[in-house]
Each structure stands twice: as C-alpha cells, then as structure tokens.
C-alpha cells in the first residue's frame, strides 16, 4: 500500500516500522511534525524534552539501555546538543540511534542556515541525506542498522523541502524484536580520559570501516546515462537535477560522510564534464577536491540560500559544451511579469488578540533596549512596534541583557530581556541564574502564553501536559524563578496596558533583578471568542490605536475601521482610545 506522506510523516513511519521504541525532541521548524506523528504509533514512547541537549541525552540513555531510538531537532538544535553528540560518537550505542538534523537552507523559519553535514564530519559519524519521503522512511531503517553495525550514532540530515514535501511512500509492517539487553561496560560508556583515549582509536578505525562501507552502501549509486555530463548530487538537489538535466549521468549519494572514494573516482573518470551541485557549503566538493579530482561546484552555485531548478539550468547552460542536454523549457518565459508595480510585502504578523502585542507596545513607548529571543514574539521587532534590539538564539535574551548592563552600568533601568515560556524552559533558566548569581539588576519579562506557539502549539514543562497530552507535573514559574535567587517577581495580565507600564517602569528602575511574568494563553488556543470591538462617531481620528499594529484595525480613507471578523475582543485598542470611540459590540451604545 502506498500513501502520500510528508518527509516528516515518513520519518515517523520509518521509526515505527524499524522498531524505534524511544524518541525525544524539542520542537523546531522544519522538524516538529516528526514526533507529533510518531507519538500516535503504538509501541513507541515519544516525548518533548526541554531542549535538544536533554533530548539527545534521553536518546543516548535509551540507546545504551537497548532501545532503538530517534532524536529529532532543527539544525540549530544540534548546536545545543553538540556536547553529548561529540562524546556519544566516542562511546557508540548499543541499540541503534538516529539523530535527525532538519536543516533550513533559505531560512524559511530560522535565524541562520548552517550546513549540519559539517557536524557529522566533525563528530566523525555517518550522515544520510534523503531526496524524498520514501527515502526518508527507508533511511531511518538503514541508519538504525548502520548505527548498530558500526556502533555509532547516525545523522539523518534533511532540508525543509524534504521535510515539508509530500510524495508516495510504501507502507510496511513494524519490526518488533529490536530490543537489546543492557550490558554494563564502563570502559565504553564512562568517558574519563583513560577510557576516552582508547575510544578515540575505535572512532578512527570505525571511520575507515564506514568509508569502505560507503562504496557498497545501497543508497550510493551511479545512474549512467549520457556521459558528456556527470553530476554528483544528494538530497533534494537530486530531484532537481532529474528535472533539469534528465539525460545526465548522476552519482546519487545517499550517504555523504564518509564518502565512497572509489565510486567517485570511477564516476569522475568516465564523464566528460563533472559537476557537484549542493546547497550551502561545498561539503561534497571539498572532499572530492581532496581526492585530487577536478570538479565544478561552488564557482557556479551559490553558498547562500536554496538552489533552484532555474539556478541549475542557468549555471550549467553558462559553462557546458552540451547545452542540448539541459531541459531549457524550465527557463521559458511565463505569461506575465509584474515588474512595473510595487507589490506590498506580506510579512508574518502577531495575530489579532495576541498576548504579546501589549508588552511590545509598552516597551516601545518606554523606549527601552530590548534583548529578544526566539518565538512568535520576535515579530515584535517589526513595525510599528519595533521593540527589539537583539535576537540571537534560544535563551540568549537573558544573558545578553546582563552583558549590556555590565558593559554600560548607566544603561541600567533601560534594558529589558523578553523571552517566551517555552524558550525560558529551553535555555533561559541558566541565563537568569547568572543574573542572580552575578548581581545583575536586569528585568526579565517572561511572556507566558502556555504553549510553544511558533512551531504550532506544542506543550512543554510549564504547561502541565506531555507530548501525548497526558497531565503531568507543571513547573511553578514563580517558585522556579525565586529558587534561582530572584526575589522580585510579579504576574501581570497581558491585556492590562496600564499595569504593564507601571510594573515594567518600576522593575526596570529598581536596583535588584526582577522577573515579570505576563500571562494570557496564545490567541490561537482560545476557541470561544468574546464580542469584537466596534468604532463609533466619537472617533477623533488620532490613530493612537494604529500604533498597536493589529491586523484587525485598518485605515480606510481617513477613518479607522475594525474588521469584526478578525477582532478577538482583547480590548487593547480601547485602552489607547482617548475619546471612548472603541466599544465592545453590544456594550455602551449611549
């Protein structure tokens, strides 16, 4: 039976079929849906961890304990998990462990576009790159087998186009008997220097064995066709090449570290023109060049962003002596070009009724320096709120605010860190500990919307629910913050602008560190709407309400109008209205 699955659904299916029993992750686009799907299969324990480092630690415990394991994260999550990863590469596993690194070339929903194949090389573990959903599923199985055969974690590196594209997948049965007994082996699993020195030798030997294996690995293959053009490709690029140069010979690499040197030499020797096409870093190209093989790659193709079919066609056509092999219809002019009209951009926005809006309005009015963080609230950096000065990585807001304060003591009272509840759980806690420990006076605002909103509403340790929606221990944010050494903690309603302004001003000015927890659930989680606001003849056209950047408010002609289909009735606009013209529908029609 065949089913149309996204890459993420296929990876979850693969984990189920190939006997994965434990899975852990922190949500991150484009990887999130893997665990959201996997949790629905029987016989698999799947969980959200507070961050990627913990997820991999849970995973390595499960694998060493004897369960086939899947750990998933977005590319930058691997930065967080790098510490356990590099030493897990030394210890090896017991039952198989596959780490999914979902990279995001083009940064559809990320803060950078690092190429995580480099991590595999750095940690000396094998990496597999699927081109479509069927391969994504199959490579979970292959990865688990390789992991057990070579006693190593295996990286399955996907990109957004593979994670979020649907294609057909053959559905199979689950292999159930994958459990292995746990055997104590401290020389293998306790990485004190004396043991680790021995394990490093094993790692280097393993690298050689993996390179040998790569030559016959079933996902590395040559598709011979016209030998005038030869292309080395992996991942989604393979599919693009099949569209653009259907007659070219292709060396399709499913395993991209270590590389099959003999296979590459065999291919290179028999083609007239040799190209390597890859997104981001010249990962394959550099290794091929080190073999002493002349190849054309990054001198044609960009290191920045995604590679498209159009780019492949244009770049190959520019240099090839065999233009007839390129499917030039891909470059055919379309029906219409709209160059002579300015098309307004449509950036993502905070939703109507978003509980973050009032906070960012307040701190923009107070003209504060805002160290920001990763989540929907990063949208607070955009006009008209423009209330963010930095956004670097998960959890960076709190430490950054302390650093600002240490750099310029006179900036005290002007700097505020803003972080969401899920991000605070992920890696904000340690930053706040540093503020308390090193006697900062920083104010940290925790935007508690009771969910991980940006990635599509996942639970976390402070929501009181698990991935499988079971009720669990719920972190008491106030008690947690106090335990870290912050004595000044206040809770404010996200829709109370007056109180927000008073408390943020007071706490920022105070000489001791403080935390303000701003509470309201994400607007998208609220199923029952309150009545929308309407605007009456008392409006004096001052447009103060427009400073909120609410999509439910717009100016038509010269008058402000409320889109009552979008308005959730949060009432922020009416709090700013000096003439009382904004009223809740059905109230105060005097």
């Amino acid at each position, binding site marked *: 039976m065949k089913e149309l699955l996204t890459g993420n659904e296929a990876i979850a299916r693969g984990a189920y079929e190939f006997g994965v029993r434990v899975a852990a992750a922190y949500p991150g686009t484009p990887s999130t849906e893997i665990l959201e799907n996997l949790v629905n299969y029987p016989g698999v324990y799947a969980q959200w961890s507070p961050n990627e480092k913990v997820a991999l630690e849970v995973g390595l415990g499960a694998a060493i304990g004897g369960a086939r394991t899947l750990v998933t994260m977005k590319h930058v999550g691997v930065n967080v998990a790098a510490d356990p990863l590099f030493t897990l590469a030394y210890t090896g596993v017991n039952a198989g462990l596959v780490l999914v690194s979902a990279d995001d070339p083009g940064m559809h929903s990320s803060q950078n576009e690092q190429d995580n194949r480099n991590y595999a090389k750095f940690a000396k573990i094998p990496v597999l790159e699927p081109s*479509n959903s069927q391969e994504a599923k199959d490579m979970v199985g292959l990865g688990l087998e390789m992991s057990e055969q070579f006693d190593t974690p295996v990286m399955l590196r996907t990109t*957004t186009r593979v994670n979020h594209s649907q*294609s057909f997948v053959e559905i199979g049965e689950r292999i159930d008997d994958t459990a292995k007994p746990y055997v104590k082996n401290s020389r293998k699993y306790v990485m004190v220097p004396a043991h680790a020195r021995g394990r490093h030798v094993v790692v280097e030997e393993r690298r050689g064995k993996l390179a040998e294996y790569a030559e016959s690995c079933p996902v590395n293959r040559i598709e011979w066709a016209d030998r005038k053009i030869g292309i080395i490709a992996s991942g*989604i690029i393979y599919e693009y090449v099949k569209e653009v140069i259907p007659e070219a010979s292709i060396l399709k690499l499913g395993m991209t570290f270590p590389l099959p040197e003999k296979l590459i030499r065999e291919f290179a020797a028999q083609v007239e023109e040799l190209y390597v096409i890859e997104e981001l870093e010249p990962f394959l190209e550099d290794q091929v060049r080190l073999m002493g093989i002349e190849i054309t790659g990054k001198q044609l193709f960009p290191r920045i962003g995604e590679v498209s079919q159009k780019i492949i066609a244009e770049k190959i056509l520019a240099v090839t002596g065999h233009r007839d092999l390129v499917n030039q*219809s*891909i470059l*055919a002019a*379309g029906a219409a070009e709209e160059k002579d009209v300015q098309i*307004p951009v449509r950036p993502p926005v905070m939703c109507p009724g978003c509980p973050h809006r009032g906070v960012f309005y307040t701190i923009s009015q107070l003209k504060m320096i805002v160290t920001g963080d990763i989540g929907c609230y990063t*949208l607070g950096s955009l006009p008209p709120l423009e209330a963010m000065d930095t956004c670097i990585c998960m959890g960076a807001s709190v430490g950054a605010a302390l650093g600002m304060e240490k750099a310029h003591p006179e900036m005290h009272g002007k700097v505020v860190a803003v972080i969401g509840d899920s991000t605070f759980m992920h890696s904000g806690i340690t930053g706040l500990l540093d503020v308390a420990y090193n006697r900062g006076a920083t104010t940290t605002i925790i935007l508690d919307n009771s969910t991980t909103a940006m990635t599509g509403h996942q639970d976390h340790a402070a929501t009181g629910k698990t991935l499988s929606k079971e009720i669990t221990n719920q972190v008491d944010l106030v008690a947690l913050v106090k335990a870290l050494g912050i004595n000044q903690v206040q809770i404010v309603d996200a829709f109370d602008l007056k109180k927000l302004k008073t408390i943020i001003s007071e706490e920022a000015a105070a000489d001791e560190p403080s935390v303000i927890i701003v509470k309201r659930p994400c607007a998208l989680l609220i199923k029952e709407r309150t009545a929308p606001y309407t605007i009456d003849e008392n409006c004096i056209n001052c447009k103060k309400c427009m400073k909120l950047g609410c999509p439910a408010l717009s100016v038509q002609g010269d008058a402000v109008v409320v889109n009552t289909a979008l308005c959730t009735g949060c009432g922020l606009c009416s709090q700013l209205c000096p003439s009382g013209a904004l009223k809740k529908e059905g109230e105060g029609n005097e």
Partner: protein
Amino acid sequence: MSNGKVTNILIVGVGGQGTILASRILSYLALEEGHDVKVSEIHGMAQRGGSVVTQVRMGEKVYSPLISEGQADVILAFERLEALRWVHYLKKDGTIIINDQAIDPVPVILGLQEYPSGIIDRIKGKVPDTIAVNALQIAEECGNAKASNVVLMGVLARKMGFGKEKCIRALEAKVPAKFLELNKNAFEKGWNVQV
C-alpha cells in the same frame, strides 16, 4: 491533463485561508487518477498571517516537488494581491483563478504602502484565461465564509476536467463529517460558476 507530462498547480493565499485543504483534495484526485504526485508546503513563521504557497505537481513521474517560475499550468489565488505576487509563476497560456477578495498586509494597514488597484484587470490584460470569482460571497450564501476554499476548488476542478463524482468522494475523504454538507454545497456552487 495529457499523458507523459507533469501538471503544475500553484495555490497561493494568506495564512489561515484554508489553502492546505485545497491541496489535500487535489492530491486525492491525482491519486484516484493513478498519477504520481508531489506536494510542497512551507510551514512555520509564514503561517502567522504571511503569504503562503502550496505547490502540487502531478503526472506519470514527478521528481521535484517544486514548480519553477513561468511553469505553472494553473494558479489558484485565494487573494488578489497574492495573485499579483505569484502570477509570474504562470506559464504562457496558463489559467489563473482569482478569489476577488483583498486582505490588507501590514504595510498597507500602517499606510506605508498602497494596496495596488485594478489587479484583476491588470492580470486579465496579460493572461487571457483569467477567472475572477467572489468565493467569499458564495461561501457566505452557503452559510460559512470559511468554505470559500471549497468554492474555489469547485471552479478549479471543473476547469481542470476532474470528474464531479470523484471530487465529491475527495470531499468525503478529506472534510470532517459535520462540515460535509456545507462543503458539498459550496463545491457545487463553485462548480456551477459561469466562467
């Protein structure tokens, strides 16, 4: 849809307009016809009221899930400005179906940029096969503004020559039971739009 060739359909709109259901129905139909299908969607940040695009490719054998500029056989635009933004993806002699609805993006709401006027006439001037539909109004007549996506599917399905019975089966498979009657009605109205 001719044999051996791949048909490219681009579905564009604004986050929250229900473009995903349209792509689900299309891929169901392609499956019924025995075609290979690939569908590409972008999730994440763009969902927060941003511009969203779904690509559906179907045919005997489909490699890439992505459509190149100037290669879409059909564009189904859920909003006027998005039609304008993506029309350069349409191939010569392609069809564009436009929901005649405007949703102001933030730069327009803030008065920083103007919502371009006369979009449909502008596109009609370049694309002879332009079909403008007031799907929102038709959906409201059916009792729910949210069914405008299925109204548009009705227009698209007839234009592309999918059988009506198959489309109804696709709806039955992809729409929750309690909204089925509403959506069948919306599809029927879309199917019967004079183009």
